[in-house]
């Protein structure tokens, strides 16, 4: 599995660039590189649905982030307790990594998953029970339709939330973006 290692190294490099570069537009574009790398990784890991999804979602979020960050300044202030902040952050991350490594030892080896009862049921019965050839879609829309309902609810709530935040109300209490 050399290619997945290479893609992950590319993603880590792009993420470090995105975190550390000072120009905001370059930072956003580097995040786009991380997302495209993730889409490639999904494709290599045999998840074509997720690859399509990640690609289109990445493009949309990239457009919105660029529109949000263009024409704005980037405040860079390194004053304050620089040493204390950095040391505490890095020590927290080290503690997190050690704990995560201990829990990683209990996971199955990469490439040999222990299929649960549920996954075996989905793989064996999805075609006869739902008539769909794509198992992921049959899980998302048939077996677990309540999950998709929650997902759709989240999108609607996000729409309502953004429309409420972006609404301009004048002093008289009349919204003036309605035409």
């Amino acid at each position: 599995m050399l290619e997945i290692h290479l893609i992950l190294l590319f993603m880590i490099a792009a993420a470090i660039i995105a975190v550390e570069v000072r120009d905001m537009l370059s930072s956003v574009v580097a995040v786009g590189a991380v997302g495209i790398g993730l889409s490639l990784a999904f494709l290599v890991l045999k998840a074509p649905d997720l690859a399509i999804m990640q690609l289109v979602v990445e493009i949309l979020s990239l457009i919105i982030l660029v529109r949000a960050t263009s024409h704005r300044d980037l405040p860079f202030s390194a004053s304050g307790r620089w040493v204390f902040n950095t040391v505490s952050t890095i020590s927290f991350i080290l503690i997190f990594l050690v704990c995560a490594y201990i829990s990683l030892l209990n996971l199955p080896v990469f490439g040999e998953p222990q299929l649960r009862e549920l996954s075996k049921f989905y793989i064996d019965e999805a075609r006869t029970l739902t008539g769909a050839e794509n198992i992921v879609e049959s899980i998302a829309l048939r077996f677990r339709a309540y999950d998709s309902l929650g997902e759709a609810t989240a999108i609607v709530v996000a729409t309502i939330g953004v429309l409420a935040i972006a609404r301009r109300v004048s002093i008289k209490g009349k919204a003036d973006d309605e035409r």
Partner: protein
Amino acid sequence: MSIYILCLILFSVGLYCVLRKRNLIKIIIGIGIMEYAANLFFILIGYRQEGRAPIYAHDQVINNMVDPLPQAVVLTSIVLGLALMLLLVAISIRIYEKYRTFDITKINRLKG
């Protein structure tokens, strides 16, 4: 095993960004990187060596499919991540309009 560790390092880069940076847009970027790493970790757990994509073919029997359940869960997670990011961007544009800055320490100072 080394792939899991690389994925954890990617997560830590996002965590460092969220904890250390003071710019609101950088914090949103850090949250996005953490979300990417978490999604990738799910798919890595479900992957099987020399596996096939979980799609039936018309004329052959496929025995070595990868685990379809994490893929269906991550499909939901990607959409939720997009909704989260849109809300964060809207709120941070509002904050910029009010305080004229993305710096969280100055926002804190100007309050009240």
